[in-house]
């Protein structure tokens, strides 16, 4: 343990720093500029940040003489400097604007920037996992086919689970598992669904009881709401002035008051719905004007009724938040946008089957053997750089080889952990250090150094 905390520039990701350096137009490469700092960050960290920004398209790398690289900020990079989030999350926001999934993109970005709202208490871990799975299932329920209203659980929408197998695959354990997880078992879609359901109920008793019932952290949800408002304000200033995608000049305070008026937690959905209704009305008005120019303008009876127009606008804008069903992007499109923002953080599902005896068909791979193959960061190797496992808290942690609907997964975070079971570790811990633990020593002072020592031993 170091006696003091490391400088921030050595602890955090440097994407934003590199973007700022490039936006300021400082001379030299990002590495050269960082080396002039009082406490320069690791060279490898700067190189990794430049590489990541180039991978998502925020920087363009051009080879200079003497084997130096010239880093040029692209349009995406310039746009990302306007947004106060991680570069990948900023890209997700921009993509959400382009594909009319702004609210969902804001929710996912704020969830990734803040803490996860899913609680996992020790005494109700299974219930928490089930609740999370439920949100994932509701975010992307199984498709029904034809006039049959019953879900077609056994057949994956991507043809994964036994397509072409006739009716043989309609039975068996696969079908029950698929129905439990929905057609896209995604953590991010689960978060989005959980937040939207909480938001529908509002920050009141109803919303709080819902959060307690579904084991969601209310503080985390409210933090997400604040972040959403901040991000929407930044987005509105960024692209709302020149396009009709977003209303210009949105402010957090206005969103908050709008949310209170429409029983919404963050006020984002009512603001977007009102804007959409206004746009539709404007388009309708333009259409009417266009028709009238073709007619005889001399007859005042043909002129549009301004009072009717204003009343219809007010009714449309006020009722849109309550009565109209919001048009939402599909789960597949959302997953695609997430993958586009996180790319090249895409892994490949490796699920080798178990060999069966006696020439029987191979058995599906168990969840414990499912591995995710990750490309090496530099893209130089033919083989995947590393293998990873799905985190136990993830929705897909208990999915076997036949449960993954697609062989590709996008991921946001990869963490190096040990294989020591945490529960066992903590039990041993309490036995070993129970006396010290009862002396009101704070966890940060006591637990973490011991924990690290225990793991390394």
């Amino acid at each position: 343990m170091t006696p003091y905390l490391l400088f921030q520039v050595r602890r955090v990701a440097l994407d934003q720093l590199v973007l700022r350096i490039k936006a300021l137009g400082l001379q030299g490469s990002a590495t050269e500029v960082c080396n002039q700092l009082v406490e320069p960050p690791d060279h490898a960290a700067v190189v990794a940040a430049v590489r990541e920004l180039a991978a998502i398209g925020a920087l363009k790398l051009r080879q200079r003489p003497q084997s130096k690289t010239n880093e040029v900020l692209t349009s995406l990079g310039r746009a990302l400097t306007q947004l106060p989030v991680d570069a990948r999350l900023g890209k997700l926001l921009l993509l959400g604007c382009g594909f009319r999934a702004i609210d969902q993109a804001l929710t996912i970005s704020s969830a990734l920037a803040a803490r996860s709202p899913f609680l996992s208490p020790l005494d109700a871990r299974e219930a928490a996992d089930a609740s999370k799975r439920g949100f994932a299932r509701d975010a992307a329920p199984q498709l029904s086919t034809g006039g049959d209203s019953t879900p077609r659980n056994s057949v994956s929408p991507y043809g994964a689970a036994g397509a072409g197998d006739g009716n043989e695959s309609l039975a068996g354990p696969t079908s029950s598992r698929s129905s439990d997880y929905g057609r896209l078992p995604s953590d991010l879609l689960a978060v989005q669904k959980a937040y939207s359901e909480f938001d529908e109920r509002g920050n009141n008793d109803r919303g709080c009881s819902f959060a307690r019932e579904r084991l969601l952290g209310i503080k985390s949800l409210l933090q997400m709401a604040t972040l959403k408002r901040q991000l929407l304000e930044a987005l509105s200033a960024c692209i709302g002035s020149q396009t009709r995608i977003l209303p210009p000049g949105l402010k957090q305070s206005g969103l908050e008051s709008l949310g209170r008026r429409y029983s919404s937690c963050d006020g984002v959905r009512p603001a977007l719905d009102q804007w959409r209704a206004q746009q539709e009305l404007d388009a309708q008005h333009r259409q009417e004007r266009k028709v009238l120019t073709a007619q005889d303008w001399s007859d005042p009876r043909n002129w549009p009724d301004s009072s009717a127009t204003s009343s219809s606008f007010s009714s449309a804008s006020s009722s849109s938040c309550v009565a109209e069903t919001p048009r939402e992007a599909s789960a597949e499109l959302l997953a695609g946008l997430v993958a586009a923002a996180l790319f090249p953080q895409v892994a490949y599902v490796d699920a080798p089957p178990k060999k069966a005896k006696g020439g029987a068909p191979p058995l599906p791979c168990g969840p414990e053997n499912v591995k995710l193959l990750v490309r090496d960061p530099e893209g130089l190797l033919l083989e995947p750089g590393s293998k990873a496992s799905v985190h136990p808290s993830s929705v897909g942690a208990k999915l076997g080889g036949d449960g993954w609907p697609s062989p590709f997964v996008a991921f946001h975070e990869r963490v190096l952990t040990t294989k020591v079971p945490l529960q066992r570790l903590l039990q041993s811990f309490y036995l070993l250090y129970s006396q010290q633990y009862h002396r009101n020593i704070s966890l940060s002072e006591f637990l973490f150094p011991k924990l690290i020592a225990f793991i390394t031993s």
Partner: protein
Amino acid sequence: MRDVTPVPPLALVLLCGGHLTCEDKIDGRGWATLAVDGWLRLQVPTSAAPVLLDARKRVNALVQSLVATAAAAGASTASGSHRASILARLGDVPSQGSNSDGLNGQESAMELEAVAEAGLLTALELLVKLPVLPETPFVPLPKAKPGGGANKNAKKRANKKSNSSSSSLGYGGKGGGKGCGYGGKGSGGSGIRRHHGTIVGPDVSSIWGGYAKDSGHDW
């Protein structure tokens, strides 16, 4: 690995990476290879390849237009005057409300509206139609290794599999019994294959392209 999201293969083709290219066709059986950023290879029917390339162009145009507008808006707003002065030092941001593509804000917004409709509808339609296109397999293709040892072995295994009588299933393919694994017709020896709804272990070395290219983003 946390925050994992399964991605529809078609979303990879349409939305991910900087550019999509069509590589050489495979052994004349009607399959084409699409490569995302030159390293993530997917196999599609030859007839579907131009449609996907066109859809990808539209989506790229939408995103490019949006991003250019956002970048220009940030430089031209009153609150961003300081940023504008900073960005002007870069030398590649034209002043007076025009973005890097030479369009002014109004033109760019109008273009964005038009492209948004076309690109969005195309992308959405394709994405939603994905479940009803079971005959379309998407597969990472083997990258030719120096010497080609791994691929030879993979080919041998593929032929062995395809000649066997097991009813191996394609990735959503209809051709049960044809030996079309996840790798599609004739290329089942590499990549992930599915047998009876099971993901079969891939030939690891064949998944990745191994290129260290620039992402190729033009936006």
